[in-house]
């Protein structure tokens, strides 16, 4: 049976993993290569490296970081953040990424999805969508530029378009829940998952084991991504997967 994936996300700037609250007061959390390997050992099903560098100078180290991280990683490895052209994508793939994640660049030019999928296959293209509830209702708008710009587009409709254009997976982040640990937005995840044939990765709000159970059962997520909760203790992923298994969620355990 196809298992539900637990994906560890590393936020990286200038070659270091950082963690913080809403991108403020970033604290150094370690070396991406070491952390990725440790997460893999602990049972992560995939690793996502997200470049949150604000400046071009810091971003220049990305290929080197990806190369070092990929070297000892034998599980799927996705790289995102600031990829805005086919050339950017090629550089990241050549450095060792298996998949790339694009967000604002796909909103600005949806043909980029098809362009990268034609060259590397749909399985290598994840379209990331940052979505926020409208007036607290179960309607969701997609935001660009790291959540700064409302697009006026319905998040589920945009996900469907991304699928049609060749995306292999959707990484769906609830801006309302991001960083809260209060649980994933199961309404958002379910709406997207039921509207699509491709897998949906839920992100934003992951906290206790029950929040993961909920997003898989009620939210119908195919995978769940979290960042900071996994940095606090590397054994948590192993614990989480065992607890999910006990709760009847199919997971890859033992790894």
């Amino acid at each position, binding site marked *: *049976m*196809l*298992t*539900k*994936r637990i994906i560890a996300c590393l936020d990286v700037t200038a070659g270091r993993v950082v963690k913080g609250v809403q991108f403020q007061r970033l604290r150094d959390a370690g070396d991406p290569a070491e952390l990725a390997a440790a997460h*893999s050992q602990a049972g992560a*099903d995939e690793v996502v490296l997200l470049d949150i560098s604000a400046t071009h100078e810091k971003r220049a180290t990305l290929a080197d970081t990806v190369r070092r991280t*990929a*070297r*000892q990683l*034998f*599980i*799927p490895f996705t790289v995102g953040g600031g990829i805005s052209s086919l050339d950017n994508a090629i550089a990241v*793939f*050549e*450095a*060792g990424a*298996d998949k790339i994640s694009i967000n604002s660049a796909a909103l600005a030019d949806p043909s980029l999805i098809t362009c990268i999928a034609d*060259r*590397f*296959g*749909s*399985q*290598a293209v994840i379209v990331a969508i940052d979505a926020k509830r409208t007036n607290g209702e179960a309607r969701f708008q997609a935001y660009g530029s790291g959540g700064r710009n409302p697009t006026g587009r319905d998040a589920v409709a945009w996900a469907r378009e991304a699928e049609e254009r060749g995306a*292999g*997976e959707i990484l769906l982040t609830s801006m309302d829940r991001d960083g809260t640990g209060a649980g994933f937005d199961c309404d958002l995840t379910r709406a997207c998952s039921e509207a699509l*044939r*491709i*897998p949906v990765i839920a992100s934003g709000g992951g906290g206790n084991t029950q929040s993961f159970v909920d997003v898989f059962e009620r939210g119908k997520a*195919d*995978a769940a991504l979290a960042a900071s909760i996994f940095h606090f203790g590397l054994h948590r992923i192993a614990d989480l997967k065992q607890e999910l298994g006990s709760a009847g969620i199919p997971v*890859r355990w033992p*790894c």
Partner: protein
Amino acid sequence: MIVVIDYRAGNLTSVKKALDHLRADAVVTADPEAVAQADKIILPGVGHFSAIAILEQAGLRTAILNRVEQGVPFLGVCVGMQWMFESSTEAPGTHGLGLLSGTCGRFPDSVKSPHVGWNSLICHDGSRLLRGIPSGSFVYFTHSYSSPVVKATVARCEHGGEFAAAVEQGNLFGVQFHPEKSGPIGLKILKNFCCLPC
């Protein structure tokens, strides 16, 4: 020397990296001459069944078939395994390598597609490729089409019905999953292939 076929599409970095990690003597190439000298051949496939046309254009199809005929161990990965069959409903009219008989097909509408993630193997006895790999082992898949369960099948997997996760017949081997992305289990399978007598 293991020759990893580069057909100028997709991403072969991961396969080469895994072979390097296993200290296997491997080269990534699109040169038919290198294929003619290969001790072993790995054909990773990504994308569409019709991409086999690129092999044809590069003179690789004949080179591969000739070398396989001479008994050299061959491993098809993902679409590379699907190409071992005669055809696929993904590209009607396109001929696979025809090393195994059968037609690849798409997943039923009842399940998510592509089939992405870790799924468990149902292993058959006596496989050299899967030596030491118990049934229930998880490996990483990502594909929208799959191969039928045929006589050469040595591992099955379930997603909206059963499909062939691995095949083996004489010097021919194929895996639908990505051993280079399947953690220690995947590396062991690649090592089993690397350790086969030439």
